[in-house]
């Protein structure tokens, strides 16, 4: 019992932290950076505890006599938890300058972020469809409130409205899918659904397939795959920078956590039903996302469009899972890490620049950036190269594993299309680099500001380079491909 409670602690600490922050935010005397330190403190404790539970509790249920089989403890969930907490810590610390420069931030911001992280952790541990729904709602409702956080700005409220109407609608679709699956199986536990799926033939499971297709629609909506993408660019544009960063990196990973669990464990044997649907969605996502990203002139909207393209690459690997590729699932986890590092870095630099002005950044505003802030420009270039998948960055390795898994499962067309869109993406990423370096600036060069946010951005840039080349060039230093082994172990802990 005590040991079980100890295993529940990483989640419990985050939610306790959220409540503590809500109480503290009532007092106007506590400054925002104090609250930030408190939030990061809770998250770091949770991170450390997760790190120590990694690897020794595979497939046990959390407090089984209380929650029945609702929560499962395995390496897969723990690795995703580590990513969520790391993402939240980085979001909070990198945006330290940003929220000090804006009047509208208050203490509840930290509480909402922690609630959202708690929802995501529940999502990665959930072993039961209703728990998944509730976890998804905890995470999304916090994010809805965060998107509309800039109270006096019309575009922020508008983004919240769009996201909330569409998000609630897909929530309903998820619940409808759950109800249909409950009608077919008689239970919503993922373990029992898996037994039911493996013991029946595909012709007898029409209701289950319809239900799980509704669930898949929700997942596709949340990651912004193309027929369901209409909210992505607007919401990313309207939200404040810290929230855009949080949604683009951490929230997207959370959705993939549950998508992978469903695709590998539950619907493993009926994946063939979706293969063609998924392939069509993947093609649309890759092409539509590229088209959206090319058209934008705001850097934030471009990054939003490109995040759709990145979802497309991940979908390639998801349909490879259905075709039996062993590498696909670890490749998704590796790609998520690579995308996480690069997008947190890129949004971090944007929010650093935004903390000194109130304008939205167009491409033109980056003219002569390299001569004004040479170090920042170098790091921005590294992030852009990594997002484009240039060799010697971690983004290249991520794409390499994804395309390998696609070829391994015989999807030559999708792999070719992925490489084509990677070439197209060079256009909109390198446009920013060209803007930074090919224009002179008449303003004097500024000093590099040493601050917690800038230091963390440097660390992210170094991690990207280390992930790309450190493995083969520097001896005795563990490389990033060690991570793919960890991911493989985590995936094998699922089955």
């Amino acid at each position, binding site marked *: 019992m005590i040991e079980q409670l100890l295993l529940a602690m990483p989640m419990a600490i985050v939610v306790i932290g959220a409540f503590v922050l809500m109480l503290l935010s009532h007092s106007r005397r506590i400054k925002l950076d104090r609250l930030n330190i408190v939030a990061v403190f809770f998250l770091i404790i949770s991170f450390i505890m997760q790190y120590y539970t990694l690897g020794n509790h595979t497939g046990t249920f959390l407090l089984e006599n209380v929650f029945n089989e609702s929560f499962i403890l395995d390496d897969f969930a723990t690795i995703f938890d580590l990513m969520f907490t790391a993402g939240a810590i980085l979001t909070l610390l990198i945006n330290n300058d940003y929220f000090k420069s804006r009047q509208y931030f208050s203490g509840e911001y930290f509480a909402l972020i922690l609630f959202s992280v708690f929802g995501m952790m529940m999502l990665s541990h959930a072993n039961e469809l*209703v728990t998944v*729904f*509730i976890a998804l*709602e905890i995470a999304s*409702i916090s994010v*809805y*409130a965060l998107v*509309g956080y800039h*109270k*006096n*700005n*019309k*575009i922020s*409220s*508008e*983004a*919240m*409205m*769009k996201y*909330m*109407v569409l998000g*609630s*609608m897909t*929530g*309903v679709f998820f*619940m*409808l899918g*759950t*109800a*249909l699956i*409950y*009608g077919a199986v*008689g*239970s*919503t536990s993922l373990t029992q659904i898996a037994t039911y799926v493996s013991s029946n033939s595909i012709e007898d499971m029409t209701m289950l397939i319809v239900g799980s297709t509704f669930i898949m629609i929700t997942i596709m909506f949340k990651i912004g795959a193309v027929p369901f993408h209409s909210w992505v660019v*607007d919401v990313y*544009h*309207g939200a404040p920078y810290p929230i855009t960063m949080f949604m683009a990196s951490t929230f997207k990973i959370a959705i993939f956590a549950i998508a992978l669990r469903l695709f590998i464990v539950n619907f493993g044997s009926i994946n063939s039903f979706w293969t063609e649907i998924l392939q069509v969605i993947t093609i649309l996502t890759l092409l539509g996302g590229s088209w959206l990203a090319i*058209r*934008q*002139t*705001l850097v934030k*909207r471009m990054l939003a469009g490109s995040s759709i393209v990145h979802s497309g690459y991940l979908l390639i690997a998801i349909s490879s899972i259905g075709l039996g590729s062993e590498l696909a699932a670890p490749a998704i986890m590796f790609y998520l890490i690579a995308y996480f590092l690069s997008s947190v870095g890129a949004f971090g630099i944007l929010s650093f620049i*935004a903390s000194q002005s*109130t*304008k*939205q950044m*167009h491409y033109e505003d980056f003219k002569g950036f390299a001569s004004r802030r040479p170090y920042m420009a170098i790091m921005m270039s590294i992030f852009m190269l990594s997002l484009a998948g240039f060799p010697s960055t971690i983004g290249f390795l991520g794409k390499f594993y994804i395309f390998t898994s696609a070829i391994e499962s015989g999807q030559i067309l999708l792999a070719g299309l992925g490489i084509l869109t990677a070439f197209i993406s060079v256009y909109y990423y390198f446009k920013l680099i060209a803007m930074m370096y090919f224009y002179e600036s008449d303003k004097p060069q500024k000093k590099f500001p040493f601050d917690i946010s800038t230091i963390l951005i440097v660390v992210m840039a170094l991690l990207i380079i280390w992930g790309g080349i450190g493995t083969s060039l520097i001896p005795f230093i563990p490389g990033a491909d060690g991570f793919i082994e960890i991911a493989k172990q985590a995936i094998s802990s699922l089955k």
Partner: protein
Amino acid sequence: MTPDMFFLLTSLLFSIGLVGLISRRNLFVVYMSIELMLSSVNLLLATFSKVLGDASGSVIALLIIAVIAAEAAIFLAMIVHIYRENRTIDSDDFDKLKEGNSNA
């Protein structure tokens, strides 16, 4: 009544909700449509619970009501906030998010 009638009612309610969500522009009506869809899902769960002779479906329906309440809280707060700011809750009037609008 046979369960088939309940399934028919459920699909009718769900369709009315979906059509309302797509075609109406007043945010209150949009919100009510979403609630209607969720309630129809609840009815479906209760029906399945009765058909299967298993109580957990009804328990799930109760849980969903709690989630609906949480969503209602934030949705209504958002509508009030949007009305204060724009003096309208017609969703056609929200078209500021586009390229070239550059106030952060």
